[in-house]
């Protein structure tokens, strides 16, 4: 019997939850789950609250089974999991901010997403010749808002402390009470660079809750958009990372390829970022044969133009000098945090929701999941290079196997409240959406969990001992989402 099944058995199952089980548990089981997270048998996949309860999504590391444990908090308190398992700390701070539920004996209860009027206390860093460098929330480049408090000894970073929440828009509260059309749009704006992946996860969660399957053509078109989005982001970021190491030529070339992807997406799906193209029940519009041809041409062009750029990266000693050995994330830490995406996979974590959950149509497609152990900026670049190659192959397979037929199914009205969740692999890692639909078909509660929750804290560790000038390079190689995290 798996550890997860034992935890579930100790609780009361919730019948309306799809596709994975959810159970109401007591504080003992909640704490036992935290202990197993600490011991590494389980991976924390999500931790969120609502008015009177907290929920914890868990994944069995070996079996890739997923389940949700829920704990009622009539006294507005719950035992802290962060006390035993540090990846839970920021999530618990967010629960305290957004729902007023207090994590008991939590190691850190400073406000996180909702900034208070009183000054924020950064953790002390003391020692001889240390100085602090405050960065943000308005940065020097065109990036999202966040604050970084760097403590340095000369050129060397001794400690980095992040302060996030500047992009906190109250997305979850806006989703509550919204109809599916509006909530789907909001989901697509949790993190703009992953608008397809979020809409995809949201649609899958709604369909799970309502027990409906979208038409096969829609299933394939969604994956096609997801791979095109992955291509656009990886191409743009590979160039941007090199640019942060002052190698502008790579940036210029990758920027051209990214623009080609966005233009093809615009021609094929009607929006450069493919925003609002995936909707619950299917996709908003069909892909024409011209669109298929355009995407196919795009795939061919990138397959032709990308390898010389990879060689350019690999042959530049001065560039590799900046990326190799910089910002190293130890595999043990990536494992503890259950880091997904290229951050995890560059540090030995062999998890990709497309393969582990194998949601359609990925169960019928051939692809590799690149994994490396070295965990530095260079490793993250290489994982993304390999993922570009895999996505090109997936785009080709998807275009070749695209079934014919309708692209949108009618959604039934739920007679009673229903719950659904989904895990979708965005370019940055696995995105979780959990939701409860009311009997009126509107959203009662929706929680989107960005992969960045389990990547941001690791940046603090990876930068330690590096020079201050390499912070932008390390940060770009992680490329965590501020908006996705801040909700």
């Amino acid at each position, binding site marked *: 019997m798996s550890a997860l099944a034992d935890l579930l058995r100790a609780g009361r199952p919730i019948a309306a939850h799809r596709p994975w089980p959810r159970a109401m548990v007591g504080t003992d089981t909640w704490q036992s789950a935290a202990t197993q997270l600490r011991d590494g048998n389980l991976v924390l996949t999500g931790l969120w609250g609502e008015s009177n309860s907290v929920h914890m999504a868990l994944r069995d590391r070996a079996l890739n089974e997923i389940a949700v444990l829920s704990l009622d908090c009539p006294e507005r308190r719950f035992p802290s999991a962060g006390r035993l398992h540090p990846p839970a700390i920021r999530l618990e701070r967010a629960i305290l901010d957004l729902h007023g539920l207090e994590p008991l004996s939590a190691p850190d209860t400073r406000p996180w997403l*909702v*900034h208070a009027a009183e000054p924020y206390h950064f953790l002390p860093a003391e020692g001889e010749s240390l100085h602090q460098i405050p960065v943000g*929330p*308005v940065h*020097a*480049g*065109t*990036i*999202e*808002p966040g604050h970084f408090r760097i403590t340095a000894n000369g050129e060397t970073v001794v400690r980095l402390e992040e302060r996030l*929440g*500047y*992009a*906190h*828009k*109250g*997305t979850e*509260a*806006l989703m509550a009470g919204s109809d599916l059309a*509006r909530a789907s*749009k*909001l989901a697509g*704006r*949790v*993190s*703009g*660079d992953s*608008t397809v992946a979020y809409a995809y996860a949201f649609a899958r969660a709604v369909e799970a809750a309502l027990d409906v399957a979208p038409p096969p053509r829609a299933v394939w078109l969604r994956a096609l958009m997801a791979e095109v989005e992955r291509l656009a982001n990886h191409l*743009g970021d590979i160039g941007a990372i090199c640019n942060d190491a002052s190698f502008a*030529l790579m940036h*210029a*070339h990758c*920027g*051209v390829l*990214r*623009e080609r992807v*966005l233009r093809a997406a615009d021609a094929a799906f009607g929006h*450069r*970022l493919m*925003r609002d193209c995936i909707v619950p029940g299917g996709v908003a519009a069909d892909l024409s044969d011209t669109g298929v041809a355009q995407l196919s041409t795009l795939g061919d062009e990138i397959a032709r133009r990308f390898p*010389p750029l990879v060689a*350019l990266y690999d*042959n*530049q000693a001065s560039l590799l000098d900046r990326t190799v050995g910089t910002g190293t994330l130890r595999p043990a830490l990536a494992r503890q945090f259950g880091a997904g995406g290229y951050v995890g996979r560059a540090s030995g974590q062999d998890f990709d929701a497309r393969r582990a959950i194998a949601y359609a149509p990925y169960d019928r497609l051939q692809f590799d999941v690149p994994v490396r152990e070295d965990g530095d900026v260079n490793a993250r670049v290489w994982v993304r290079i390999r993922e570009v190659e895999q996505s090109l192959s997936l785009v080709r397979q998807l275009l070749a196997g695209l079934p014919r037929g309708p692209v949108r199914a009618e959604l039934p009205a739920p007679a009673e409240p229903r719950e659904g969740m989904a895990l979708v692999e965005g370019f940055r890692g696995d995105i979780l959406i959990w939701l409860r639909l009311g009997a009126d078909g509107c959203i009662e509660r929706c929680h989107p969990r960005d992969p960045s929750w389990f990547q941001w804290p690791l940046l603090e560790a990876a930068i330690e001992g590096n020079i201050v000038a390499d912070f932008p390079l390390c940060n770009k190689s992680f490329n965590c*989402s*501020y*908006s996705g995290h*801040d909700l």
Partner: protein
Amino acid sequence: MRRHLFEGLIRKPLTEPAPWIDDDAAADVAKALDRAARKRLGRSLAIRQIDAGSCNGCELEIVALNNAFYDLERYGLRFVASPRHADVLLVTGPVTKNMREALERTYLATPDPKWVVALGDCAIDGGLFAGGQACIGAVDGVIPVDIRIRGCPPTPQKILASLLAMLEI
């Protein structure tokens, strides 16, 4: 490396001609801007971008302005790292409560004459986030706005056309 540089010499440039500025847009911009102040700055504008809580979609399209197709800098438009060097503040997002002070302080740090461009639906009226408990909404609820560029996000073409309209008057 040599191969890439050589190809750069023999291949046709990717850079595209300036987008068409329609008269309505130009008239709007002319109305919004103080012509005398605008003239003092000549045919060059330094832009400071501020993300006041966007979903990062607008940032993606702003960054695209620097790629070879749009090549913003050939028009004398460039992004600068500090508000103290800026003529134009390009603001995105539904101004979260957490970003309000940073936005105000950045505005105050920018020397006169200065203009504020609200970019994207969120910055113009809060977009989908209007009425949210954690957002203030439109940028002009916090600092005065001169020019508005609609879209979710607006295309680089559209952003470029609006910025060029500022140079034309």
